[in-house]
């Protein structure tokens, strides 16, 4: 009876699109909010209703593979998994004005009526958008205000979850590591206990990859963390075999064009390289690969079911996939004519003109990250100018006429000489282009982002250069970059600083984030939306100094994310930090195991991987 009643209430609680028609017609791209995409499976309410939430726009979220995998894993267990994306300001405002709640796309069910909302944290600047979505859903932001059990569980996962503390006061469950099975395991346990009971929390917190902030408390002494009360180390969830892992055969084809509107296969997870600034290179270890057979089958199924004409071969470094040539051949044979292949993450040393032969792209992106060989050795980029030039030449010969170069400013040990070397790279690339007569004029764009020290990297102890220092470095670059026709751009200084604070933040930042949201900060990663004053006020009003978070950490200090175990040992990270200061390159895992701590689960460490 109660169940029947519950069902009845849910039924009348659905959001009716006709009722908000005038709102839909008054906003930009209404098809973001209507659902009904081709390829969305038939959905019905189930014993456990999950809504995968993405704290960015529809077009961005619909291109994300991770959330599709998590939703698929939940559906595979017989539960419902719907989607919701952050609405743009016009629609969000309209919902609020009408008192209409934020709803899921397929069922049009208010988010408040779900059993669990899972937010995917792709980067730190989306944190206020998580609060924005909760607020639009009519869900109290703070966990302490949701105690009566009438609200869904609020969960987060994704790369930023490796340091979940800045969101600790808002969330009930944090998923750390691979999302293929852990989210669905928690769903089953929830159903078993009939809700988020004490037993439920006890059982899930014993699992690898689950962190419940309510059960732990950091203890401070003199402004530094002294200990974590109530928590032992939390190991990340690890999927050992990607070939057997859940992968959707069908994608929902977005109503309006998404940022990467194409089919995606995940060739590998993890990276053999270990560039010292790169968080993904450490938290996704060990490298796991899918077989050529699995990848071909997945790509063919996706193309057949979606009608896309492009497949992207995703990984952190697709050129390191040992059977890449074989894979490309197999895909070309298996896929219908005219389907393009995209290789978005190729290192310069693995780029080969052959890979580009049949696509008509004009622009190629390289990421040398640092101007000089010395600095590239410091960050373990393990790439030489010769390799960059060889790759550029082979790209030019294949018809490319534009090069994008990514660099970082403010890397540890960086000097002005290192910055001046960026000019030299541009000059050499121009020289390589001029070796042969070519039809078009070469375009070079240099994009400099600010270095942000991230947890679980060998640079997690480093300070971030001050805004003044970064500005000075940008000026040095402007003055020394003398090659004509180079287009120089850089990231916003305040944004980089904010990202750095949030990345290595602790639980004390919850009140800053809350405050910033109340000051109207959302879509912080957008240049035109960033509300710098709102953030500055939030830091000031809460008495929080940004410098406390961008400062260098002592090596013996307890870090806010130390209770999380991503498998890479602190000892290894420290040794990598030392090697960085000696300018010593560690090199790829494929050239021999470097002993990062994940050897028992690592194919490459055990002689495989070639």
């Amino acid at each position: 009876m109660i169940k029947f009643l519950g069902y009845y209430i849910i039924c009348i609680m659905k959001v009716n699109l006709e009722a908000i028609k005038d709102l839909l017609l008054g906003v930009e791209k209404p098809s973001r909010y209507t659902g009904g995409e081709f390829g969305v499976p038939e959905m019905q309410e189930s014993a456990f209703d999950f809504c995968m939430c993405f704290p960015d726009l529809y077009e961005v979220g619909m291109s994300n593979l991770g959330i599709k995998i998590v939703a698929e894993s939940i559906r595979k267990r017989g539960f419902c998994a719907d989607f919701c994306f952050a609405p743009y300001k016009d629609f969000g405002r309209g919902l609020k004005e009408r008192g209409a709640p934020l709803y899921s796309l397929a069922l049009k069910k208010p988010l408040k009526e779900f059993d669990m909302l899972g937010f995917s944290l792709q980067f730190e600047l989306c944190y206020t958008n998580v609060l924005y979505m909760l607020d639009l859903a009519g869900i109290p932001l703070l966990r302490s205000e949701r105690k009566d059990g009438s609200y869904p569980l609020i969960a987060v996962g994704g790369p930023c979850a490796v340091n979940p503390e800045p969101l600790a006061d808002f969330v009930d469950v944090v998923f750390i590591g691979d999302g293929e099975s852990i989210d669905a395991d928690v769903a089953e346990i929830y159903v078993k206990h009939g809700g988020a009971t004490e037993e439920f929390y006890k059982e899930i917190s014993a699992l690898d990859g689950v962190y419940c902030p309510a059960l732990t408390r950091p203890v401070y002494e003199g402004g530094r963390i002294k200990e974590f009360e109530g928590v032992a180390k939390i190991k990340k969830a690890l999927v050992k075999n990607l070939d057997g892992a859940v992968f959707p055969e069908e994608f929902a084809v977005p109503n309006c064009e998404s940022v990467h509107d194409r089919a995606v296969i995940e060739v590998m997870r993890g990276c053999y390289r270990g560039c010292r600034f790169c968080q993904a290179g450490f938290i996704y270890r060990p490298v796991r690969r899918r077989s050529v057979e699995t990848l071909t089958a997945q790509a063919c199924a996706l193309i057949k079911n979606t009608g896309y004409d492009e497949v992207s071969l995703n990984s952190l470094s697709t050129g390191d996939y040992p059977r890449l040539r074989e894979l490309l051949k197999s895909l070309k044979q298996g896929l219908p004519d005219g389907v393009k292949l995209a290789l978005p993450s190729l290192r310069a040393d693995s780029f080969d003109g052959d890979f580009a032969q049949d696509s008509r792209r004009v622009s190629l992106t390289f990421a040398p990250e640092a101007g000089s060989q010395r600095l590239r050795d410091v960050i373990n980029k393990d790439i030489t100018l010769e390799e960059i030039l060889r790759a550029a030449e082979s790209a030019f010969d294949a018809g490319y006429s534009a090069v994008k170069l990514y660099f970082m400013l403010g890397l540890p040990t960086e000097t002005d000489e290192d910055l001046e070397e960026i000019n030299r790279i541009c000059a050499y690339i121009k020289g390589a282009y001029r070796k042969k007569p070519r039809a078009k004029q070469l375009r070079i764009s240099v994009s400099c982002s600010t270095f942000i020290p991230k947890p679980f990297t060998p640079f997690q102890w480093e300070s971030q250069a001050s805004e003044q220092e970064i500005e000075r470095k940008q000026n040095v670059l402007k003055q020394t970059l003398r090659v004509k026709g180079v287009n120089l751009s850089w990231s916003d200084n305040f944004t980089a600083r904010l990202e750095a604070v949030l990345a290595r933040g602790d639980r004390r930042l919850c009140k800053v984030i809350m405050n910033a949201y109340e000051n109207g900060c959302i879509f912080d990663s957008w240049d035109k939306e960033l509300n710098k004053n709102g953030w500055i006020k939030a830091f000031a009003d809460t008495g929080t100094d940004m410098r406390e978070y961008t400062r260098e950490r002592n090596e013996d200090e307890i870090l806010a994310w130390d209770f999380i175990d991503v498998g890479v040992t602190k000892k290894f990270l420290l040794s990598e930090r030392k090697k960085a200061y000696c300018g010593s390159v560690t090199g790829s895992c494929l050239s021999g195991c470097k002993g990062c701590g994940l050897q028992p689960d690592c194919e490459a460490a055990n002689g495989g991987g070639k």
Partner: protein
Amino acid sequence: MIAFRYTKTDGAEYLSHLDLLRHIDRTLKRAQIKVKTSEGYNPHPRIFMNNPLGLGVKSVAEYCAADCDCTGDFAEAFNASSPSGIKCLAYREVAENPNFAYTIKSCGYCAEGIAAFDPEEILSRKSIVLTDTRGRQTDIRERIYALEFKDGKLFFTAGCGEKNLRPDFFCAFLEKTFGGRTHSVLKLCAFGENTF
């Protein structure tokens, strides 16, 4: 070449024209109906649509032609692979591009929610000048071909193509003049030498 009539309902009325084209292209790909491509530097599928429909206007009379060969039942194949709001209602084999964007001269619509008024009141006017979203002033009177109330619903025929009258604009004008609130505009049919 196949010419077909299809719907734009069930949420598809919120799709922009370009997104709609993309959906038709992908539907045909999923249905494994091979569409010929243009022979240029940037080949694109030879799919020809009628004029864009205003956002939010539903339709059961959108027309499209695709340069393809389809041996089986085109509608069945298309509908098995199309989004729920885009469904083929009728189709026929044609020798050449019917050029719906040019040949469709007027369309019939049905609007609900506008307060009842005497159609003669509009039809007897000599001129009705409206300002469109781009600030241009247009006399729409000569673009209204028929207007009548039936069962509380307003049925009207308006110009399309060169002498286009956006049905949602027209309804907004009627709302302003006679009151009520349009909650649905549906395109029922299109008139032109090649429609069916």
